[in-house]
Protein backbone atom coordinates (compact mmCIF):
# COMPACT_ATOMS: atom_id res chain seq x y z
CA UNK A 1 0.00 0.00 0.00
CA UNK A 2 1.76 3.17 -1.13
CA UNK A 3 1.47 6.37 0.91
CA UNK A 4 -0.25 8.42 -1.85
CA UNK A 5 -2.99 5.79 -2.14
CA UNK A 6 -3.48 5.73 1.62
CA UNK A 7 -3.61 9.53 1.72
CA UNK A 8 -6.12 9.51 -1.15
CA UNK A 9 -8.32 7.02 0.70
CA UNK A 10 -8.22 9.19 3.84
CA UNK A 11 -9.20 12.29 1.85
CA UNK A 12 -12.04 10.38 0.19
CA UNK A 13 -13.41 9.15 3.53
CA UNK A 14 -13.17 12.53 5.27
CA UNK A 15 -14.55 14.55 2.35
CA UNK A 16 -17.42 12.10 1.85
CA UNK A 17 -18.37 12.41 5.51
CA UNK A 18 -18.08 16.19 5.30
CA UNK A 19 -20.48 16.27 2.32
CA UNK A 20 -23.02 14.14 4.18
CA UNK A 21 -22.80 16.12 7.40
CA UNK A 22 -22.92 19.46 5.58
CA UNK A 23 -26.18 18.37 3.95
CA UNK A 24 -27.80 17.65 7.31
CA UNK A 25 -26.55 20.96 8.76
CA UNK A 26 -27.59 22.96 5.70
CA UNK A 27 -31.19 22.03 6.43
CA UNK A 28 -31.08 24.37 9.46
CA UNK A 29 -30.02 27.32 7.35
CA UNK A 30 -32.78 26.61 4.87
CA UNK A 31 -35.39 26.11 7.58
CA UNK A 32 -38.48 28.27 7.37
CA UNK A 33 -38.35 28.47 3.63
CA UNK A 34 -41.18 26.06 2.90
CA UNK A 35 -40.87 26.45 -0.87
CA UNK A 36 -37.21 25.56 -0.79
CA UNK A 37 -37.85 22.42 1.26
CA UNK A 38 -40.29 21.29 -1.40
CA UNK A 39 -37.72 22.03 -4.12
CA UNK A 40 -35.21 19.90 -2.21
CA UNK A 41 -37.56 16.92 -2.09
CA UNK A 42 -38.25 17.38 -5.78
CA UNK A 43 -34.49 17.53 -6.32
CA UNK A 44 -34.00 14.21 -4.53
CA UNK A 45 -36.72 12.55 -6.60
CA UNK A 46 -35.18 13.89 -9.82
CA UNK A 47 -31.70 12.74 -8.71
CA UNK A 48 -32.92 9.23 -7.92
CA UNK A 49 -34.77 9.02 -11.23
CA UNK A 50 -31.62 10.13 -13.05
CA UNK A 51 -29.43 7.63 -11.19
CA UNK A 52 -31.88 4.82 -11.86
CA UNK A 53 -32.10 5.69 -15.55
CA UNK A 54 -28.38 6.19 -16.16
CA UNK A 55 -27.37 3.05 -14.26
CA UNK A 56 -30.04 1.06 -16.11
CA UNK A 57 -28.94 2.25 -19.55
CA UNK A 58 -25.19 2.83 -19.17
CA UNK A 59 -22.10 1.04 -18.04
CA UNK A 60 -19.77 3.96 -17.40
CA UNK A 61 -19.87 5.88 -20.67
CA UNK A 62 -21.01 2.95 -22.81
CA UNK A 63 -24.50 1.63 -23.37
CA UNK A 64 -25.43 -1.24 -21.05
CA UNK A 65 -26.28 -4.62 -22.55
CA UNK A 66 -29.95 -5.34 -23.38
CA UNK A 67 -30.20 -7.96 -20.60
CA UNK A 68 -29.69 -5.32 -17.91
CA UNK A 69 -32.19 -2.95 -19.49
CA UNK A 70 -34.75 -5.76 -19.77
CA UNK A 71 -34.14 -6.78 -16.15
CA UNK A 72 -34.74 -3.22 -14.92
CA UNK A 73 -37.89 -2.88 -17.05
CA UNK A 74 -39.29 -6.17 -15.73
CA UNK A 75 -38.35 -5.29 -12.15
CA UNK A 76 -39.93 -1.86 -12.62
CA UNK A 77 -43.09 -3.51 -13.92
CA UNK A 78 -43.22 -5.67 -10.77
CA UNK A 79 -42.90 -2.46 -8.74
CA UNK A 80 -45.71 -0.80 -10.71
CA UNK A 81 -47.90 -3.81 -9.88
CA UNK A 82 -47.13 -3.04 -6.21
CA UNK A 83 -45.42 -6.38 -5.68
CA UNK A 84 -43.12 -6.62 -2.63
CA UNK A 85 -39.58 -5.29 -3.01
CA UNK A 86 -38.14 -8.81 -2.64
CA UNK A 87 -40.05 -9.77 -5.77
CA UNK A 88 -38.83 -6.66 -7.61
CA UNK A 89 -35.23 -7.54 -6.72
CA UNK A 90 -35.59 -11.18 -7.76
CA UNK A 91 -37.44 -10.41 -11.01
CA UNK A 92 -34.81 -7.82 -12.04
CA UNK A 93 -31.79 -9.95 -11.14
CA UNK A 94 -33.04 -13.35 -12.30
CA UNK A 95 -34.42 -12.06 -15.62
CA UNK A 96 -31.18 -10.24 -16.45
CA UNK A 97 -29.15 -13.33 -15.48
CA UNK A 98 -31.36 -15.69 -17.52
CA UNK A 99 -31.29 -13.43 -20.58
CA UNK A 100 -27.50 -13.56 -20.45
CA UNK A 101 -27.57 -17.36 -20.54
CA UNK A 102 -29.45 -17.37 -23.83
Amino acid at each position, binding site marked *: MSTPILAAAAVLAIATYAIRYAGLRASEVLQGTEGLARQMDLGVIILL*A*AISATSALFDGHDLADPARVAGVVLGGTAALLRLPLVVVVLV*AGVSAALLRLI
Partner: protein
Amino acid sequence: MIAHAARSRRAGEIASIAGSVLLVGVSYGALADGAHLPLWFVLLLACTVLGASSELVFVGAIAGGASPVLAVVGALLLNLRNGLYGVSVARFLPRGATRLLDAHLVNDETAAYGLAQPDAGTGRRAFRVLGVAIAVAWPAGAALGVLLGRSVPDPSSLGLDAVFPAILLAMLIGVVRDLRTGGLALGGAAAAVAVTPVVATGIAPLVALSVLVPGMLRGAWRRRRR
Protein backbone atom coordinates in the same frame (compact mmCIF):
# COMPACT_ATOMS: atom_id res chain seq x y z
CA MET B 1 -52.59 -5.77 13.25
CA ILE B 2 -52.11 -3.38 10.34
CA ALA B 3 -49.07 -1.85 12.05
CA HIS B 4 -47.66 -5.32 12.49
CA ALA B 5 -48.14 -6.13 8.80
CA ALA B 6 -46.45 -2.87 7.80
CA ARG B 7 -43.53 -3.62 10.11
CA SER B 8 -42.94 -7.08 8.69
CA ARG B 9 -43.24 -5.67 5.16
CA ARG B 10 -40.54 -3.11 5.98
CA ALA B 11 -38.37 -5.84 7.50
CA GLY B 12 -38.60 -7.76 4.23
CA GLU B 13 -37.80 -4.65 2.21
CA ILE B 14 -34.79 -3.79 4.34
CA ALA B 15 -33.55 -7.38 4.17
CA SER B 16 -33.83 -7.48 0.39
CA ILE B 17 -32.01 -4.16 -0.07
CA ALA B 18 -29.26 -5.09 2.41
CA GLY B 19 -28.99 -8.55 0.85
CA SER B 20 -28.47 -6.99 -2.58
CA VAL B 21 -25.88 -4.62 -1.11
CA LEU B 22 -24.08 -7.61 0.40
CA LEU B 23 -23.92 -9.40 -2.96
CA VAL B 24 -22.62 -6.30 -4.74
CA GLY B 25 -20.09 -5.96 -1.91
CA VAL B 26 -18.86 -9.50 -2.58
CA SER B 27 -18.27 -8.75 -6.26
CA TYR B 28 -16.61 -5.43 -5.38
CA GLY B 29 -14.30 -7.22 -2.93
CA ALA B 30 -13.34 -9.75 -5.58
CA LEU B 31 -12.54 -6.88 -7.96
CA ALA B 32 -10.40 -5.17 -5.31
CA ASP B 33 -8.62 -8.46 -4.68
CA GLY B 34 -7.93 -8.72 -8.40
CA ALA B 35 -6.34 -5.25 -8.16
CA HIS B 36 -4.07 -6.63 -5.39
CA LEU B 37 -5.55 -4.47 -2.66
CA PRO B 38 -5.17 -6.00 0.82
CA LEU B 39 -8.17 -7.00 2.93
CA TRP B 40 -7.57 -4.40 5.67
CA PHE B 41 -7.52 -1.59 3.11
CA VAL B 42 -10.74 -2.69 1.38
CA LEU B 43 -12.45 -3.12 4.74
CA LEU B 44 -11.28 0.27 6.01
CA LEU B 45 -12.48 1.96 2.81
CA ALA B 46 -15.84 0.16 2.99
CA CYS B 47 -16.40 1.21 6.61
CA THR B 48 -15.22 4.82 6.36
CA VAL B 49 -16.47 5.82 2.89
CA LEU B 50 -19.57 3.60 2.86
CA GLY B 51 -20.44 4.57 -0.70
CA ALA B 52 -20.54 1.65 -3.10
CA SER B 53 -20.28 3.37 -6.46
CA SER B 54 -17.64 5.84 -5.28
CA GLU B 55 -15.46 3.02 -3.94
CA LEU B 56 -15.84 1.10 -7.19
CA VAL B 57 -14.68 4.18 -9.11
CA PHE B 58 -11.83 4.81 -6.67
CA VAL B 59 -10.54 1.24 -6.69
CA GLY B 60 -11.07 0.96 -10.45
CA ALA B 61 -9.07 4.13 -11.06
CA ILE B 62 -6.23 3.02 -8.76
CA ALA B 63 -6.18 -0.43 -10.36
CA GLY B 64 -6.11 1.19 -13.79
CA GLY B 65 -3.02 3.16 -12.80
CA ALA B 66 -4.71 6.58 -12.54
CA SER B 67 -3.20 9.13 -10.17
CA PRO B 68 -4.62 9.02 -6.62
CA VAL B 69 -5.75 12.65 -6.99
CA LEU B 70 -7.86 11.80 -10.03
CA ALA B 71 -9.21 8.73 -8.28
CA VAL B 72 -10.37 10.83 -5.31
CA VAL B 73 -11.91 13.55 -7.48
CA GLY B 74 -13.82 10.99 -9.54
CA ALA B 75 -15.11 9.23 -6.44
CA LEU B 76 -16.09 12.48 -4.70
CA LEU B 77 -18.12 13.65 -7.69
CA LEU B 78 -20.28 10.58 -7.13
CA ASN B 79 -20.75 11.41 -3.46
CA LEU B 80 -21.83 15.04 -3.96
CA ARG B 81 -25.46 13.99 -4.24
CA ASN B 82 -25.38 12.79 -0.64
CA GLY B 83 -25.25 16.45 0.38
CA LEU B 84 -28.61 17.05 -1.25
CA TYR B 85 -30.06 13.89 0.29
CA GLY B 86 -28.90 15.17 3.68
CA VAL B 87 -30.87 18.41 3.34
CA SER B 88 -33.98 16.40 2.58
CA VAL B 89 -33.73 13.59 5.16
CA ALA B 90 -32.76 16.07 7.92
CA ARG B 91 -36.47 16.83 8.14
CA PHE B 92 -37.13 13.61 10.08
CA LEU B 93 -33.80 13.35 11.94
CA PRO B 94 -33.26 14.95 15.35
CA ARG B 95 -30.57 17.57 15.91
CA GLY B 96 -27.76 16.96 18.35
CA ALA B 97 -25.08 14.33 18.71
CA THR B 98 -26.99 11.52 16.96
CA ARG B 99 -26.72 13.55 13.78
CA LEU B 100 -23.01 12.81 13.68
CA LEU B 101 -23.90 9.13 13.24
CA ASP B 102 -26.96 9.72 11.04
CA ALA B 103 -24.77 11.64 8.58
CA HIS B 104 -22.69 8.54 7.85
CA LEU B 105 -25.82 6.59 6.89
CA VAL B 106 -26.94 8.95 4.10
CA ASN B 107 -26.91 7.29 0.66
CA ASP B 108 -29.18 6.66 -2.37
CA GLU B 109 -31.07 3.81 -0.73
CA THR B 110 -31.56 5.26 2.76
CA ALA B 111 -32.65 8.65 1.39
CA ALA B 112 -35.14 7.09 -1.02
CA TYR B 113 -36.43 4.62 1.55
CA GLY B 114 -36.73 7.15 4.37
CA LEU B 115 -38.56 9.67 2.19
CA ALA B 116 -40.90 6.97 0.88
CA GLN B 117 -42.35 6.40 4.37
CA PRO B 118 -45.73 7.86 5.29
CA ASP B 119 -44.64 9.90 8.35
CA ALA B 120 -41.57 11.36 10.03
CA GLY B 121 -41.26 8.75 12.80
CA THR B 122 -41.44 5.84 10.37
CA GLY B 123 -39.10 7.67 8.02
CA ARG B 124 -36.50 8.10 10.76
CA ARG B 125 -36.69 4.45 11.84
CA ALA B 126 -36.63 3.17 8.25
CA PHE B 127 -33.67 5.42 7.44
CA ARG B 128 -31.69 4.27 10.46
CA VAL B 129 -32.43 0.55 10.33
CA LEU B 130 -31.67 0.37 6.60
CA GLY B 131 -28.61 2.60 7.12
CA VAL B 132 -27.15 0.32 9.79
CA ALA B 133 -28.03 -2.79 7.76
CA ILE B 134 -26.13 -1.34 4.78
CA ALA B 135 -23.25 -0.21 7.00
CA VAL B 136 -22.87 -3.87 8.04
CA ALA B 137 -23.72 -5.57 4.75
CA TRP B 138 -21.40 -3.52 2.52
CA PRO B 139 -18.13 -4.05 4.46
CA ALA B 140 -19.07 -7.67 5.23
CA GLY B 141 -19.71 -8.36 1.56
CA ALA B 142 -16.53 -6.59 0.48
CA ALA B 143 -14.42 -8.57 2.98
CA LEU B 144 -16.02 -11.82 1.84
CA GLY B 145 -15.27 -10.91 -1.76
CA VAL B 146 -11.59 -10.28 -1.04
CA LEU B 147 -11.33 -13.61 0.80
CA LEU B 148 -13.09 -15.55 -1.95
CA GLY B 149 -11.16 -13.69 -4.63
CA ARG B 150 -11.27 -15.30 -8.02
CA SER B 151 -13.88 -17.90 -7.10
CA VAL B 152 -16.56 -15.17 -7.03
CA PRO B 153 -18.73 -15.31 -10.17
CA ASP B 154 -19.03 -12.24 -12.39
CA PRO B 155 -21.74 -9.99 -10.87
CA SER B 156 -23.44 -9.66 -14.24
CA SER B 157 -24.02 -13.43 -14.33
CA LEU B 158 -26.26 -12.91 -11.27
CA GLY B 159 -28.02 -9.95 -12.88
CA LEU B 160 -26.94 -7.72 -9.98
CA ASP B 161 -26.43 -4.75 -12.29
CA ALA B 162 -30.18 -4.74 -12.98
CA VAL B 163 -31.14 -4.92 -9.30
CA PHE B 164 -30.19 -1.45 -8.06
CA PRO B 165 -31.81 0.61 -10.81
CA ALA B 166 -34.94 -1.49 -10.18
CA ILE B 167 -34.83 -0.86 -6.41
CA LEU B 168 -34.60 2.91 -6.95
CA LEU B 169 -37.39 2.71 -9.52
CA ALA B 170 -39.61 0.84 -7.03
CA MET B 171 -39.08 3.56 -4.42
CA LEU B 172 -39.76 6.33 -6.93
CA ILE B 173 -43.06 4.74 -7.83
CA GLY B 174 -44.02 5.00 -4.16
CA VAL B 175 -42.91 8.63 -3.82
CA VAL B 176 -44.13 10.26 -7.03
CA ARG B 177 -47.73 11.19 -6.31
CA ASP B 178 -48.59 13.87 -8.88
CA LEU B 179 -48.17 14.45 -12.57
CA ARG B 180 -45.84 17.45 -12.25
CA THR B 181 -43.37 15.52 -10.05
CA GLY B 182 -43.50 12.56 -12.42
CA GLY B 183 -42.91 14.84 -15.40
CA LEU B 184 -39.92 16.53 -13.76
CA ALA B 185 -38.45 13.15 -12.76
CA LEU B 186 -38.80 11.87 -16.32
CA GLY B 187 -37.37 15.09 -17.75
CA GLY B 188 -34.42 14.93 -15.36
CA ALA B 189 -33.78 11.28 -16.17
CA ALA B 190 -33.84 12.08 -19.89
CA ALA B 191 -31.40 14.97 -19.44
CA ALA B 192 -29.02 12.76 -17.42
CA VAL B 193 -29.19 9.97 -20.00
CA ALA B 194 -28.51 12.44 -22.80
CA VAL B 195 -25.31 13.80 -21.25
CA THR B 196 -23.97 10.55 -19.75
CA PRO B 197 -21.77 9.64 -22.74
CA VAL B 198 -19.97 12.99 -22.66
CA VAL B 199 -19.56 14.05 -19.00
CA ALA B 200 -17.48 12.63 -16.13
CA THR B 201 -19.04 9.80 -14.13
CA GLY B 202 -21.25 11.18 -11.38
CA ILE B 203 -22.02 14.47 -13.11
CA ALA B 204 -24.94 13.30 -15.27
CA PRO B 205 -27.44 12.89 -12.38
CA LEU B 206 -26.57 16.39 -11.19
CA VAL B 207 -27.29 17.74 -14.69
CA ALA B 208 -30.78 16.29 -14.23
CA LEU B 209 -31.42 18.92 -11.55
CA SER B 210 -31.37 21.59 -14.26
CA VAL B 211 -35.04 20.75 -14.93
CA LEU B 212 -35.81 22.58 -11.68
CA VAL B 213 -34.36 25.86 -12.95
CA PRO B 214 -37.36 27.08 -15.00
CA GLY B 215 -39.70 26.56 -12.03
CA MET B 216 -37.36 28.36 -9.64
CA LEU B 217 -36.94 31.29 -12.03
CA ARG B 218 -40.67 31.56 -12.42
CA GLY B 219 -41.06 31.54 -8.62
CA ALA B 220 -38.45 34.26 -8.19
CA TRP B 221 -40.11 36.34 -10.92
CA ARG B 222 -43.49 36.08 -9.20
CA ARG B 223 -42.02 37.11 -5.86
CA ARG B 224 -40.38 40.16 -7.42
CA ARG B 225 -43.61 41.32 -8.97
CA ARG B 226 -45.45 41.12 -5.67
